[in-house]
């Protein structure tokens, strides 16, 4: 037998985009063009849906007509199933972009009486393809042929022929297969379909169901071998690709307001960095939601959209509660600049939450995402899972330049919550803390910034007060007793004010005293001076007198002398 030379693959296999969100990313382009891809999995894993979406998106987004050959469900059943998703199958069929045919194979209807082949099926398929000019084909599930026809050997041979035929016609095909016990498919279809095999899985763990997809084989293409979680929403499939954890996102230097002027001041005077990940942790009832609401409000006033994910309160609750402290969220809601999504965290698994967020973010394109609180995630995942999920979220948001504010409930009595918060804090760029301070029968809140990367920030504790006008951050009193807040602070401030005024009074008094003394001193000096002046005068007079006397004496002496030497010194001889 002649040896068939194997042609080395010099280039990547040409691919066809499926249009299924996330799938084209993990396969780097879709499924192989003009070849058959096998999608296998257990019952209810979504094979039919995926195959159908492949055709629907092909028709809607890529204008490629497709033929759906169903071997299990009737056309009516298929249409009903598709109605639960927004696929408008009927529309597509009408506009000849989609053709659905049901091939009934019932064992007891068929009697085998000699040689035959499956040319009838080929003819039907060919006819369907030619009728609408199809480029995409789905055969779901072709394994039904084995159940319906008595001769497995003929079926196998014809299947081989079919896949070759589809390839010759250049049809990009998806074939579905039911999972077997030992093999990927019950009838071993993976032997004939060797270009690309995708496996779907649906697991339930701790009452939460997760769907996963795995690329078992993809000839001629690089592919990850991991399982990728996916979900089926009413818009179809959504696969969550593992976002590049390369930490190489572009970073913004723009600063945005927190909505609380005093907090902006504490954050280097300008607020948060755009695109940063902000963690706000605090004990129950400290006002975390209000900080989130303020942030959303300030975004709205800049014309930016916010997405608020709430796991505790319903939309109307949030609006009502925020209105009581003067934050009007309804205004932004009506303008379409705020979208509040409330759901119980226990409803879905972590990946589903992540995908749902991704989906909403994709739809809404917000600048701000607020998640309140993330501590609820610990109800549906281990701390490790939660951290991983949050890093993916962080990654996704950073790559889009979206600023995230995540609140986290802590409890002084629950140390595990504390430690997990610390774990997450390593992800965050800014960490704000809301603390309770109990003193003198008061329980007040304080806020301070634990860290804020890339900016100078205040390390002062401020008292966090919610009033009907909103949030106030007041200076706390720091005295000998420590930090005082609330009524103690007010008391202290009052007593300090009093003390201040009494001191002032004392100073005033002392000053006056000094002045008086000075006055007295001045008076005394004046007196002494004047006395001195009098003395001076007296003495000066005396001096003058004596001087006169001296002068008189001197003149008398001269006179006497001159009289004694009567002749006086006559002219010298």
């Amino acid at each position, binding site marked *: 037998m002649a040896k068939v030379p194997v042609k080395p693959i010099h280039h990547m296999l040409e691919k066809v985009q499926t249009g299924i969100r996330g799938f084209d990313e993990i396969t780097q382009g879709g499924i192989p063009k003009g070849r058959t891809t096998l999608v296998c999995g257990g019952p209810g894993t979504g094979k039919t849906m995926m195959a159908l979406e492949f055709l629907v998106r092909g028709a809607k987004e890529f204008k490629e007509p497709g033929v759906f050959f169903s071997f299990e469900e009737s056309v009516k059943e298929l249409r009903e199933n598709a109605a639960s998703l927004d696929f408008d199958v009927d529309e597509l069929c009408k506009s000849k972009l989609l053709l659905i045919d049901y091939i009934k194979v019932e064992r007891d209807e*068929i*009697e085998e009486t000699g*040689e035959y082949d499956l040319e009838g*099926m080929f003819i*039907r398929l060919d006819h369907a393809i030619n009728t609408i000019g199809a480029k995409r084909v789905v055969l779901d599930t072709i394994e039904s042929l084995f159940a319906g026809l008595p001769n497995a050997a003929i079926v196998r041979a014809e299947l081989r022929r079919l896949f070759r035929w589809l390839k010759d016609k250049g049809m990009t095909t998806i074939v579905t297969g039911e999972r077997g016990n030992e093999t990927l498919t019950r009838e071993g279809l993976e032997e004939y379909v060797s270009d690309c095999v995708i496996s779907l899985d649906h697991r339930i763990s701790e009452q939460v169901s997760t769907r996963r997809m795995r690329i078992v084989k993809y000839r001629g293409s690089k592919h990850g071998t991991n399982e990728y979680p996916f979900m089926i929403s009413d818009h179809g499939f959504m696969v969550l690709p593992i976002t590049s954890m390369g930490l190489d996102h572009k970073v913004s230097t723009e600063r945005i307001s927190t909505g609380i002027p005093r907090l902006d001041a504490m954050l280097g005077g300008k607020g948060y960095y755009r695109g940063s990940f902000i963690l706000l942790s605090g004990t129950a009832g400290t006002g975390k939601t209000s900080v989130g609401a303020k942030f959303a409000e300030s975004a709205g006033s800049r014309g930016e959209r916010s997405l608020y994910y709430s796991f505790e309160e319903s939309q109307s609750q949030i609006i009502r509660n925020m209105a009581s402290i003067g934050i009007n969220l309804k205004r932004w809601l009506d303008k379409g600049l705020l979208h509040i999504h409330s759901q119980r965290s226990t409803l879905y698994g972590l990946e589903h939450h992540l995908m749902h967020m991704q989906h909403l973010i994709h739809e809404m394109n917000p600048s701000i995402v607020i998640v309140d609180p993330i501590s609820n995630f610990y109800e549906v995942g281990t701390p490790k899972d939660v951290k991983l999920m949050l890093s993916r979220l962080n990654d996704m948001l950073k790559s889009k330049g979206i600023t995230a504010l995540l609140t986290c409930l802590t409890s002084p009595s629950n140390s595990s919550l504390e430690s997990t918060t610390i774990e997450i804090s390593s992800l965050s760029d800014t960490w704000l803390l809301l603390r309770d301070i109990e003193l003198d029968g008061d329980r007040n809140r304080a806020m301070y910034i634990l860290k804020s990367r890339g900016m100078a920030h205040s390390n002062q504790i401020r008292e966090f007060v919610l009033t009907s006008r909103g949030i106030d951050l007041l200076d706390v009193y720091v005295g000998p007793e420590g930090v005082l807040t609330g009524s103690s602070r007010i008391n202290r401030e009052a007593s300090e004010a009093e003390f201040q005024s009494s001191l002032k009074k004392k100073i005033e008094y002392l000053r006056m005293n000094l002045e008086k003394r000075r006055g007295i001193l001045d008076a005394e000096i004046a007196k002494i001076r004047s006395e001195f002046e009098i003395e001076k005068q007296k003495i000066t007079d005396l001096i003058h007198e004596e001087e006169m006397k001296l002068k008189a004496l001197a003149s008398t002496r001269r006179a006497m002398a001159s009289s004694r030497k009567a002749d006086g010194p006559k002219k010298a001889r």
Partner: protein
Amino acid sequence: MKKQKPGKSWELRLYVAGQTPKSILAFANLKKICEEHLAGEYTIEVIDLLENPQLAAGDQILAIPTLVRKLPQPIKKIIGDLSNTERVLVGLDLRPSDVNESAVGS
């Protein structure tokens, strides 16, 4: 069990895909069986799917050749070139008129 008496008119449809050896053989076999067991009370319609592909869907044709008994009801489908006469008769729910002695006991 009531046997179908060749008295009612039978309507048979043979689906083929062009003039292949299998189709020709099937047609020949069919004619023979009909002559033997239906004695003139029948019509055979040969549908060539290569010429009329759209007709395959109606009777849900997969295999070629396929013989469909349209009348009498219920519809019966037989695949193969009809070489196995026994099977064809079973499939058409027809017993040969001269093989009668074995009463279907039990």
